[in-house]
Each structure stands twice: as structure tokens, then as C-alpha cells.
């Protein structure tokens, strides 16, 4: 008999338990904390003034395909004979197609399109004000040669992009800021809420990105957006690319040439709009990828990367107007502004700063062995963004 064959029931149970622990680790404290947090958010929503929220979530409108399937099924049930059922289904489908062709399909597919001002009210921003606030020169403490932006047209919003080479970069200067303000009928002298000192915004992708990540270190901040509405990659892949972008953008030396490696982020904000929560990577994934990327601190440093997942209202931002560059630029500006305000307010994600659920998970597990993986990840990043 081999040792494996000679296992007692107790030994076997121990091995099984260990296998389960490895396959499905259970963090009781984190789960309890998360359950309590859900409960408190639920309580807050119940006691909020919104009657739709009083007894739970708002129910999103059913897609038209749901009603079509319902109609076909009902038609099939009405018919007693199986041979007639298929005919009834086909007839319903035929009628539905005729009906759809006579109506405006868009009005059936989309929920009533919210006005941009309504959307901005939802996040607490004036639509004409938010992007200007975001791009105002001098307010964002960063070297001028890094302030790359692109203009999609006279009436559209400037958005930050340091990665998209197709865009024609231009620098934000006092002149084009004034021009932009004029294009938006905004007073160039309007005093926007100043971001805190030392905040720098590097890589961002504006068009139709509805959520972003914000890596915060002791000395700077890095905002990147990876959750794009039309991006078909999995949430994990999107976060991975955001992480790569973060790693591959070393802190710029104003003198040029030398690029210092990035410091470990002390905090990571994952700003997710509520209707994209399904598309957001799970906290475990983020945790795992940060560990893989070697971004978890070494025990000597003794600090952990705190991950905050922040959901933002409103529910309906992923609708037709937001698919335009203009709308998403605005939305992105609003999201980034939320992030900046969060930092300015001492990074406390209370209900005053963020209208919805904010979950904090602090990870303090030491990491010793990620140097190799980290090196691999960095080289992958360098391949994507080669040094000039």
C-alpha cells in the first residue's frame, strides 16, 4: 500500500479541507465588514427622500427583447395544438417586426434620454463648469509640457490624453483656455474649486470612458480610465491595462531624460458608475493583480494599498447622449473632479463626498516574491510604451 492509499478518513478530510481552503479561501472579517457596509448603505437609501429608493433599488426598464419573448411565449401558450404554437410564435414575431419598423426603434430600445444637465445634477456638477474646472491652467500642479490635451472641435470638450497618438496634441495655455471658455460661454475668471496641491493627472483616455482608476501615492496621483462602454475586453483585462499604464508612466523628471520608478500607491480609487458595476473587476481581482504587479508593499514598508471602490450616480449615464465624445468628456471630467475632491477632502469617502456606496478594504499582506513578476510586467509595459 502506498501512503496515498493508506489514508484514514480523518486524513482524507484534512486534505479535503486544505484543498477547499486553497481553492476557495474564506475571509470572514472582510465578509462581515462588507455585509455591514451593505446594510448601512441600504439603510441610508431607505431613509433618503427618494421614494423609488425607499424600498430597495429602482427597477431598470425591461429591454424590448424581454417583451418580445413574453409576447411570443404568451401567443404559444394560447394555442392548444403544438403545430399551431410555432405558427403563432412566427406570426407574433412577424407582427412585432412590422410594429418595430413603423415606430422609432431608438425610442423602444433606449430609456428616455436624460439631458446632460440632469446627469450633471446627479453628480453635483454644472455641465458647463465641470470641464473648465478640470482643465484650468495653473490649478493642476504639473509641468506644462505634460499637459497634453486634444480638441475635438470648437464646441466640444477638451479631454486629457497622453496615450492616443492619433489625436493632435496641443498644450493648455492661457490663450486656448480663454478660447475654450469662450466656446462654452463660461467666464474665464470663474473661480473653480481648486484641486489640492501636488495633484498631477497623467494618463487618461477620454472618449466614452465612463469610469476611472486613480492611483494615489505619497507624492502624486495617477488617473487612468480603463472601463470603456464600448470596450469588449473583460473587466480583468481592462484593469490589467490600467495597471500597465500606471507602471509604464514613470514619474517624469522636469529636466527630462531620467525617469524615476513609480512609488507604491498608498490608495487606489476605483470609480465605477453604478450601471457599470457589473463590468467592474472584483476586489479580489484587483487585489490579485496588484499583488502580481508587485505593487503590494514589502513588509519593510509596513503599509498597505487601500482599495476604495466607489459607485457613482446616476444610473442612466450609459445612454445615447453619453456615447458622444462631448458627453463622455463631460462625464469623465465630472468623475475626475469627484476623485480630486475626494483627495482634497482628505480621502474620506463619506456620503457627503460620494453619493453612494463606498467600500474600503485595506490589504496589508506582505509581498516578497513579486520582483520577478513585476519585472516581467514592467518589460511588458515598456514593450507597449517604448522609451523614446
Amino acid at each position, binding site marked *: 500500500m*502506498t*501512503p*496515498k*492509499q493508506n*489514508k484514514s*478518513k480523518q486524513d*482524507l*478530510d484534512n*486534505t*479535503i*479541507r*486544505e*484543498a*477547499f*481552503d*486553497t*481553492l*476557495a*479561501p*474564506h*475571509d470572514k472579517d*472582510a*465578509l*462581515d465588514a*462588507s*455585509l*455591514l457596509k*451593505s*446594510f*448601512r448603505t*441600504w*439603510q441610508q437609501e431607505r431613509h433618503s427622500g427618494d421614494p423609488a429608493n425607499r*424600498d*430597495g*433599488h429602482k427597477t431598470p426598464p425591461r429591454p424590448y427583447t424581454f417583451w418580445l419573448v413574453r409576447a411570443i411565449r404568451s401567443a404559444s401558450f394560447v394555442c392548444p395544438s403544438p403545430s399551431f404554437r410555432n405558427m403563432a410564435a412566427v406570426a407574433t414575431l412577424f407582427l412585432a417586426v412590422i410594429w418595430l419598423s413603423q415606430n422609432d426603434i431608438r425610442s423602444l430600445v433606449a430609456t428616455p434620454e436624460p439631458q446632460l444637465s440632469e446627469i450633471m445634477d446627479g453628480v453635483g456638477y454644472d455641465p458647463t463648469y465641470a470641464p473648465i474646472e478640470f482643465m484650468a491652467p495653473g490649478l493642476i500642479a504639473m509641468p506644462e509640457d505634460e499637459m497634453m490635451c486634444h480638441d475635438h472641435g470648437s464646441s466640444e470638450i477638451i479631454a486629457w490624453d497622453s496615450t492616443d497618438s492619433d489625436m493632435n496634441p496641443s498644450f493648455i495655455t492661457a490663450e486656448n483656455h480663454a478660447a475654450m471658455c469662450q466656446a462654452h460661454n463660461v467666464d474665464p475668471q470663474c473661480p473653480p474649486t481648486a484641486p489640492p496641491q501636488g495633484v498631477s493627472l497623467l494618463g487618461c483616455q477620454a472618449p466614452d470612458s465612463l469610469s476611472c482608476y486613480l492611483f494615489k501615492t505619497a507624492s502624486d496621483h495617477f488617473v487612468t480610465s480603463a472601463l470603456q462602454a464600448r470596450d469588449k475586453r*473583460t473587466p480583468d483585462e481592462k484593469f490589467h491595462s490600467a495597471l500597465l499604464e500606471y507602471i509604464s508612466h514613470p514619474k517624469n523628471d522636469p529636466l527630462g531624460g531620467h525617469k524615476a520608478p513609480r512609488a507604491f500607491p498608498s490608495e487606489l480609487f476605483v470609480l465605477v458608475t453604478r450601471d457599470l458595476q*457589473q463590468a467592474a473587476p*472584483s*476586489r*479580489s*481581482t484587483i*487585489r*490579485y493583480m496588484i*499583488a502580481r504587479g508587485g505593487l503590494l508593499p514589502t513588509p519593510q514598508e509596513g503599509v498597505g494599498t487601500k482599495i476604495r471602490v466607489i459607485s457613482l450616480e446616476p444610473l442612466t449615464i450609459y445612454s445615447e447622449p453619453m456615447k458622444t465624445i462631448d458627453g463622455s468628456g463631460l462625464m469623465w471630467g465630472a468623475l475626475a473632479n469627484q476623485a480630486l475632491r475626494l483627495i482634497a477632502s482628505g480621502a474620506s469617502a463619506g456620503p457627503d463626498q460620494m453619493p453612494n456606496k463606498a467600500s474600503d478594504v485595506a490589504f496589508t*499582506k506582505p*509581498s*516578497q*516574491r513579486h520582483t520577478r513578476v513585476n519585472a516581467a510586467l514592467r518589460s511588458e509595459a515598456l514593450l507597449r510604451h517604448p522609451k523614446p
Partner: protein
Amino acid sequence: MSCDYPNQPDANLVAMVLQGDELAWLALARRYTPLVKSIAISFGVFALSDEVVDIVFDTALRKLHQLKKPSGFKGWIRRIAKTRTSNFKRDQKLDRHVGLDALMKASEPSACPEKCASIKEELAIVSAALKDLPQVELQVLYLSAVEQKKGKEIAALLDISEAKVSKKLKSARKRIKKALISSSERDWEFSGLNEAAKALTLVELVLK
């Protein structure tokens, strides 16, 4: 006034939760966490099963006011767990993440490399066998081995008979043991082949 939460029936706890008692919610969640986690595992969601538990209880909380019979909370949460897990699985496509703890454990330097290697090998075989188990067997095995539930408790949680629980447990253990034995037999055959090859080489050398 102190309240004995763990011994309260489901209906009372549900009523307390609706009145805003967070400890009642915690007690209710703790009571059914093993069940929900076992459902997640039985659907093949391993590493992210805690995430599923979180989602299931969040959904349950938001729909709690729709629960018509509070005493039927168990069946209700079981239905939610099944739906949410299958949705989660569909969204995730593959549960390909390795837990960080597992990653750390695997990279720890070991004092006894041979023994540790054999333990790791065994763990790998058992893990693979667990993934191949039928749903109910996996669920019962998890509740018994990890949650340390007795046959009677498992039967009550899953609404099946005690005899069925013991039958499923027995069958699950048998399958895992079989996987272990067949792997060890393969090892023996392999080592036997190695010995034969060595002997052949020796004979060749002597003949030369």
C-alpha cells in the same frame, strides 16, 4: 436589552432587519453563509466564492421587503444564491483566479522539500477531483469538511434526507480516494518503468 440572535427563528430576524437591526442582519447572514458559499462552490465558483456571498446577501437585503413569508427565508436565499451564482459565472466566464493566500502559501520556502512536494501534489489531485465532483456531492462535502456541519444540519440546510447526505458524503469521499489511488498507481508504474530503463542501460554498459 440583549437579544439572543443566533437562536432566533428566521422570521423574527427578518422582522428585526426590516426594522433596521444590523446585528440581526449579521446573524441571518452568518447563519446562511455556509449554504450560499456551498452553492457557489457547487456551481464551480471557487476563488471568488466570497464575492458571490457578498452579492447574494446584498441582493437579498434589497429585496427583503418583497419576501412574503419570512419563515421561508432559507428557500428564498437558496433561490437567490443559485440565480446570482449562475449570473456571476456567466459574467466571469471562468473562475481562473488563484487566491492570494494560496499564492503566498505556494511560494513559502519549505523546510522539508520532499514532504511538501508530496503534500502539494496530493492537494493538486484532491483539488482536481473536487472540481469534477457532482454538484450536490461537492456541496455536501464542503458543508461537512469545511463548515464542520453534522449530517442532520446539512440535511436541514439542503432540504434533503439524512440518509441521502450520508450517501452523498460517502460517494464524494470514495471518488476523491479513487483519484488519489489512481494517481499513486500511475506513480508506481512510472517508477517501475524508470527502474526497468535503468537496468537496461546497465546491461548495455556491461555488454559494451
